[in-house]
């Protein structure tokens, strides 16, 4: 109610403008699917398995109220404030992976030996704003 008093007597247009700042961005930061096969990279001669690999990726705008939704540190909100109030050349917080899962790969080495290896951090599973 106070906001309404504070808000100028306005046409519906200004009112919607005014509330826009509280709406979450349409393309909010989130995890997106991406699937590739090693044959597309022409590496299937030496990468035997898996045939398909889904590394996923993070994309989207970081809303201002990032804290509870993304587990972002307070620094992210400070950086947002700097960008908005002090210096627009400082970049807004970015949408990046926060957690990963490993990938098992079966490859043929140059000497003809075969190796099974489990690599850390090969598939993004969660996004955050930093």
């Amino acid at each position, binding site marked *: 109610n106070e906001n309404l008093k504070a808000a100028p007597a306005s046409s519906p247009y200004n009112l919607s403008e005014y509330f826009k700042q509280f709406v979450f961005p349409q393309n909010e930061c989130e995890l997106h699917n991406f699937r590739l096969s090693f044959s597309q990279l022409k*590496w299937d*001669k030496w990468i*035997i398995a898996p045939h398909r*690999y889904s590394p996923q990726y993070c994309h989207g705008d970081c809303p201002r109220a990032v804290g509870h939704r993304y587990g972002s540190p307070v620094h992210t909100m400070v950086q947002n404030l700097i960008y908005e109030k002090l210096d627009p050349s400082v970049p807004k917080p970015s949408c990046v992976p926060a957690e990963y899962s*490993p990938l098992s790969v079966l490859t043929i*080495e140059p000497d003809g030996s075969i190796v099974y290896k489990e690599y850390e951090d090969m598939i993004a599973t969660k996004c955050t704003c930093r």
Partner: protein
Amino acid sequence: PHARGRGGLDEAPASLEAPEGAASELNPVLQLPQGVRQGYAPLPPLLKVLSDRGPQRWDSEVPRLQPDSRALRYMKRLYKMSATKEGIPKAHKGNLYNTVRLLTPCLECRHRHRDLVKGDVHSVDLLFNLDRVTALEHLLKSVLLYSFDTSVPTSSSITFICHLSIKEHDSASQVCPSISHSLAFSLHFEVRKRKWVEIDVTSFLQPLIATNRRNIHMAVNFTCLMGDPQRSTKLEDPVNGTLVPPSLLLYLNDTSEQAYHGWNSLKHGMKSPVQARQRNSPLVDLTGDKGKGNSQGKRASRQRR
């Protein structure tokens, strides 16, 4: 320095040998100062190709020897047991390995003679090159992998009474190899096509790999009889097909940053491989004092204190 040890920079693609000036535009990894680069553990091929700018190079320029088809079939089966279709490692209990290497012998001379008493003796001299094993990969278990490609009808079940003696050729001195390891055992199984027989040779290889040996040269005698030991064993050729020279299978724990240490994550509350090893009674118990009763352990440590 350990990068020089095994599978190190001497194996690396030509770009690593580029003159210093050229290094900077080649590859971000190469912008490391010389000293750091020397100590830089060699990246496994997959990560090397991901960090290189010229992935297509890997496809065309790096010649690859094609592995034995049986070996490939075995490793595909191991992959299916260890990971899902999407390539996610299965949380299988007990094994600490995050790397398994299958090496085929780069040199083998076979001898075969029939011994009326012992039966059919197959002996092969094998040379395995360990350059691909990095200094950060610790051996957990090693296995000689025999495959029998037999034409024996699948219904028959036979018993192999086998004697495996492994001698390590010390290339420095040409004296006759000392028998470092021998074991006798009997195997009884239904013979199906392409049957695998895994023979654990960990205790033999452990000291050799721990001393950064880059080549392992061994003579292996594999004597088999066919038939039931109780009755007279017929000295038939136990395998009508060929006894394929064995491959060497190494189960390793890669301790590098890029390798996945499922058991080590804080989630599992494990702090170090030793704890995990002691708790998970792994493939190989390297501590040798498995389960000797905690009280004894405590008393001993109290006395020591």
